């Protein structure tokens, strides 16, 4: 028997899409029955109370959670988010209901053995409610009490070889696309780079020393499956420098509408768009107009290709990214708070992604940026805002990267150039008396 009536939430049980309400109710029952005889370390009926407080929010149209109270594990400045219910008398099971962020493996592959170990720990010491995954990327364990935090951390590190993720003003848990593990478009091994940097910067991840949060995200090609260009202070997007690899026979298979060569890898199968037309669907849609198809021969003027991926996505069996692969680095993306949304701006057009020297070319850029941001960034100022405040030119200066037309959409439209004194012959110190000899007062 449910502890609280939930007439509004009950209406979210129907319909085809998986119902989180059904799932929570089921979980509440499983905990109530406790067939496995678990010695729950937080209130057994916390999921009932979670449903109860959510129902109340549905009735009021207002949240019933409070922020505040610093909780965490010893020595770490992040990974735990304090959460308290503002109706503890009604819902004592969720009076203290903190979040723990668990650093997810790159690519988000799991074995059931690992998942079951996490679940077992979380059933014993928490609510058993999770987010798979939070929007930063971590596994989110939703709801436990303060005394359990160290216990969970101890078990994670000692028994599961598993650390917490980041929260607060530090490096947030990096996240990546599945990349070369299962995607032929990948221009670098996003998992390897993501994992390496996550480990390389554990201190920055756990101990807040930054002005504000900082995110890395890794897309192994310009398709951008993890949306790094919109969601990370530093976005690493795979790209290539040389020519798109063309298999002319396969191109012609597409042109002939061979059924083993469905255009766009079959992504449009459920509507009749007519037979594939290479001129209309590829050549004419190429944003740079750098392709042509004549006499069964596809030609790409690679010097003018901007590597948008359209032709490759449309004919994946015929076209592949080039062989000289690496990544572009874009900086400064953030959500609208405080100064409006920003997308990442291109800082490094191309850099090699080289595990053999510990990605030196990449860590150098990262560390130069951090030095600048930690020195100059105001409290709660994201990198994108610092770049806006001090200028993109300053970003180039601190990273030692030479300005190039690739950095801009178009050159500036105002002439208000802040010339530096050393850039102007003779400097700024002048003798007004000397001037006055030729220009009367």
């Amino acid at each position, binding site marked *: 028997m449910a502890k609280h009536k939930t007439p*509004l*939430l009950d209406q*979210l*049980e129907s*319909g085809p*899409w*998986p*119902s989180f309400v059904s799932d*929570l109710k089921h979980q509440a029952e*499983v905990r109530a029955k406790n067939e496995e005889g678990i010695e729950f370390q937080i209130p057994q009926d916390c999921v009932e109370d979670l449903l109860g407080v959510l129902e109340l*929010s*549905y009735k009021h149209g*207002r949240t019933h*959670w409070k*922020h505040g109270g610093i909780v965490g594990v010893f*020595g770490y400045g992040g990974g735990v988010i304090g959460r308290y219910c503002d109706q503890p008398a009604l819902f004592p099971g969720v009076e203290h*209901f903190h979040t723990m962020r668990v*650093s997810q493996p790159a*690519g988000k*592959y*799991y074995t*059931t053995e690992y*998942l079951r170990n996490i*679940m077992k720990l979380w059933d014993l010491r928490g609510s058993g*409610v999770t*987010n*798979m995954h*939070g929007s930063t990327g971590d596994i989110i364990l*939703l709801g436990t009490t303060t*005394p359990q935090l*160290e216990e*969970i951390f*101890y078990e994670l*590190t*000692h028994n*599961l*070889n598993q*650390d917490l993720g980041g929260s607060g003003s530090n490096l947030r848990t990096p996240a990546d696309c599945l990349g070369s*593990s*299962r995607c*032929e478009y990948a221009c670098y091994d996003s998992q390897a780079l993501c*994992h390496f940097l996550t480990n390389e910067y*554990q201190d920055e991840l*756990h101990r807040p020393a930054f002005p504000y949060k900082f995110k890395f995200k890794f897309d192994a090609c310009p*398709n951008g499956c993890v949306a790094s260009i*919109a969601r990370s202070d530093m976005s690493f997007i795979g790209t290539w420098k040389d020519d798109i690899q063309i298999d002319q026979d396969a191109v012609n298979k597409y042109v002939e509408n061979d059924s083993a060569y*469905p255009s*766009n*890898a079959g*992504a449009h199968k*459920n509507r009749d*768009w007519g037979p594939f037309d290479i001129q209309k*669907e590829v050549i004419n*849609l190429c*944003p740079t107009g750098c392709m042509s198809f004549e006499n069964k021969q596809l030609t790409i003027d690679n010097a003018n290709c901007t590597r948008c991926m359209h032709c490759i996505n449309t004919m994946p069996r015929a076209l592949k990214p080039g062989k000289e692969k690496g990544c572009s680095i874009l900086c400064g993306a953030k959500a*609208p*708070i405080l100064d*409006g*949304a920003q997308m990442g701006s291109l800082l490094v057009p191309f850099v090699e992604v080289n595990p053999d020297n510990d990605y030196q070319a990449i860590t150098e850029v990262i560390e130069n940026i951090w030095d600048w941001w930690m020195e100059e960034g105001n409290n*709660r100022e994201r990198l994108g805002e610092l770049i806006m405040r001090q200028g993109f030119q300053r970003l180039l200066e601190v990273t030692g990267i030479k300005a190039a037309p690739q950095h801009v959409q178009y050159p500036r439209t105002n002439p208000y150039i802040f010339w530096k004194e050393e850039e102007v012959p003779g400097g700024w110190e002048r003798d007004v008396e000397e001037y006055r000899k030729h220009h009367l007062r």
Partner: protein
Amino acid sequence: MAFISSGYNPDKPMEDRITDIGPRKYDEFYPSVIAKNKGKWSHHEILEAGVIVHVAESGDEVYTVRVGGCRLMTTTHLEEICQIADKHCDGHVRFTTRNNVEFMVDSKDKVEPLKNDLASRIFSGGSQKFPIGGTGAGITNIVHTQGWIHCHTPATDASGTVKATMDEVFEDFQSMRLPAKLRISMACCLNMCGAVHCSDIAILGYHRKPPMLDHEYLDKICEIPLAIKACPTAAIRPAKTKLADGTEVKTVAVKNERCMFCGNCYTMCPSMPLADTEGDGIVLMAGGKVSNRISHPKFSKVVVAFIPNDMPRWPSMTDAIKKMINAYSNGANKYERLGDWAERIGWEKFFEVCELDFSHHLIDDFRQQAYMSWRQSTQFKF
């Protein structure tokens, strides 16, 4: 319930302490066909909505069956996922960035039994536990944030608005009949944990009333300078006020007309709550994208300034979303994303064909980027 120690000794927190070990290494978890063919994939094909085959240079194949998942997920449900993975996939499973779950098998004959098993599992309330879909030119799962289930600043619920929307667009989750992929995202306050500002359609919770001030407690509970600093628009200043009993207390004053309703002050100071039944609701944005395909990534634009919270299913919100999807589906060219289509026909036409009202709220007045969005031309459509 007796306290069970993990082995941690609170008197000696540093004893045996293990820190900074990071996540588990990704390749411990690869299914064997993935481990073997990593970096050597030749091509892929979406066989039907939700089913993808990747073919390796070696000729090996991996069949992925993608199912929708709620990101809010209990261990009971996870256990069921593990059982399926054990039964069909040698104990391997993967999650996607958009909260889908992927089951992978290494040969074609394993696909049908897996699909049938997934499709047969239904929640007691009637919804599907593992709907197959979310690929290609359709609508995949909605990335979203916490909402009323666990955050202190939401202006609407996340899981509920997502469930209501996915139920309405479910056919497009299970088919690939749109001109291009259509990404929906949801964030429950303007902090946008989910970074929804570059989605084809974005659902955003928004407050419309400045914070209330709990003068009696404010100075006791909050660090006033931190609350002042938290405000992005500098709307908060220190103040003094007299309580009903005549005592003078330190507090803050908010310049209401400068407030953008972000809730950052409430994060810093629980004596400045801003949630409100009438004030809070939903903003809809449209036309953003993050992929570099054909056109550049772009921001979503606000297309509906406000929709009141209408629990539990937000019908006016889902109605507006469906209108946009239908108009897009009918009007866009193959490969054209929603934002590219809107730009091609012009936003003035977008409002007409989507049957959405335009109001003064939709004209940007926030800082210098506003000017860029006004029309500096005599070219427009009536």
